[in-house]
């Protein structure tokens, strides 16, 4: 028994290491990409300012002779995370920035201090949507600040970004809805026929329980119900929230790889911790397979253990992000055609509206489907891990 607990621990550690190495790689990639730009800054300050001001003007959408509509950039900004919650025009709700760095300690201030990336504050400034450390500690024009690479590398940015705020809203909404329903079951309408919200949610809860979780896991399903139901409704509500374009919704929450990663890791941990002897045996010593084949099969099985949560993450992230990008791209068509004259833009708008509505309706389906798929696959993986040996 102890042996398998140890194996479980080992798998978790391996997965953690994999995640860590992956993050470091990506971080290095991005710093490599930034390096030539920074060299240019140190050698030629004037050039840097030009670059920054050009991007600034494009971002703020101020009328400029060279300005061209960059639909790709706008779309990416919409699906990416942000430190402020954009409402309309130049209005946005500032969100708290929380930073910890081993050199400078904790810092907590409002994102409005950066004035959309134009100012530095407390030794930090915004580069795109990334908080970077600068050498100058006071408040000054961001264009003249110099980036402190050493400190930047050690920043832990736990700011309440748009996505983090959305997590809170989604969680709050879930708690509100389901404690309310629980109240209806236990107090308000105990023993009576369900009505309203309770009646709306009950078939979905029953569906998830009876058609998704029970057949996938088997008779031990009850232990995993709270987690899987929470995952299902979290993904579904977050997906639906992402489809509503007005505040306080519209964040691309489930289309963020960090969210998908966290959920996949939770499933992975539950699978690994609850896995029984039978499960590990099938991975390391597939019964009834010749020794020679095992040399080939075991690495594939071990890879499969990590591949499953990875695929779970990619599927959710890619589906939701792609949906958002396509819907936004159709919508952007109005403005792309509008560059050739307002009349052209207006002429195209009915068609793009039809496309956008179609995509949004499709996304409504996808929102449910992805929650369904994530929950079902999690249940299937858990089911495979707790399945009893029978031949």
């Amino acid at each position, binding site marked *: 028994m102890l042996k398998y607990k140890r194996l479980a621990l080992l798998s978790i550690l391996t997965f953690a290491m994999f995640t860590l190495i992956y993050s470091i790689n990506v971080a290095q990639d991005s710093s490599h990409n930034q390096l030539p730009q920074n060299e240019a800054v140190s050698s030629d300050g004037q050039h840097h300012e030009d670059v920054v001001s050009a991007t600034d003007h494009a971002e703020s959408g101020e009328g400029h002779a060279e300005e061209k509509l960059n639909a790709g950039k706008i779309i990416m900004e919409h699906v990416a995370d942000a430190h402020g919650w954009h409402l309309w025009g130049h209005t946005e709700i500032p969100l708290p920035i929380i930073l910890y760095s081993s050199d400078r300690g904790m810092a907590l201030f409002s994102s409005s201090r950066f004035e959309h990336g134009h100012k530095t504050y407390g030794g930090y400034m915004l580069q795109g949507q990334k908080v970077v450390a600068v050498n100058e500690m006071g408040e000054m024009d961001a264009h003249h600040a110099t980036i402190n690479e050493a400190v930047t590398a050690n920043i832990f940015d*736990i700011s309440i970004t748009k996505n983090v705020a959305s*997590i809170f809203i989604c969680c709050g909404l879930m708690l509100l809805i389901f*404690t309310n329903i*629980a109240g209806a079951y236990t107090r308000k309408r105990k023993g009576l026929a369900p009505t309203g919200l309770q009646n709306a949610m009950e078939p979905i809860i029953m569906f998830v329980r009876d058609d998704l979780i029970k057949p996938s896991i088997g008779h031990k399903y009850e232990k995993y119900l709270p987690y899987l139901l*929470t995952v299902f409704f979290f993904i579904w509500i977050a997906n639906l929230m992402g489809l509503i374009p007005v505040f306080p919704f519209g964040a691309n929450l489930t289309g963020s790889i960090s969210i998908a990663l966290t959920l996949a890791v939770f499933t992975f941990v539950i699978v690994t911790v609850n896995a029984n002897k039978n499960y590990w045996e099938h991975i390391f010593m597939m019964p009834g397979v010749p020794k020679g084949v095992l040399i080939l099969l075991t690495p594939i099985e071990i890879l499969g253990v990590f591949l499953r949560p990875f695929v779970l993450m990619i599927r959710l992230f890619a589906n939701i992000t792609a949906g958002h990008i396509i819907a936004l791209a159709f919508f952007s068509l109005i403005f792309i055609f509008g560059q050739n004259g307002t009349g052209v833009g207006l002429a195209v708008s009915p068609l793009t509206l039809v496309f956008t509505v179609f995509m949004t309706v499709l996304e409504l389906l996808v929102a449910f489907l992805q929650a369904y798929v994530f929950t079902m696959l999690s249940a299937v993986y858990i089911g495979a891990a707790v399945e009893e040996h029978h031949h």
Partner: protein
Amino acid sequence: MELVKPEFGLIFWMSISFLIVVFLMRKFAWGPILSSLKERETSISDALNAAKKAKEEVANMTAENERILQEARNERDVLLREARETKDQIINESRAKAQVEGDRLITLAREAITNEKMAAITDLKNQVAYLSIEIAEKMIRQKLSNDEQQKALVQEMLKDVKMN
């Protein structure tokens, strides 16, 4: 490639929030909801089972009633048939008895008649014998002298006796 880069802050907040939410949901939402659903399911299935049982009982009772009724009907039929048979038997027996009795009476009557007849014949014979004796006595008294006459008379008398 910003899109596929996991962000520490987001993972941090997501992990904390999600763990708290799973815990709270388990305690305050899924627990009560799932147990209520289960309770209701068992109560519904119990009620259905009870209804089924009651239905079976009613069906059993109906069958029982039907059976009792059928038995009563059969009983009545048997009784009626038996009564009819008894009646027929009694009639037949009476008829047979009457026949026998009649036969016996007739036989008795015949015997009596035969006896009476024999007695009458005997009596007649006795009477004839008496009359013959009386006639013979009278003849003897009247014409014992005359042989011819005596012989004629005897002849005549014997002729009469033969006739008889």
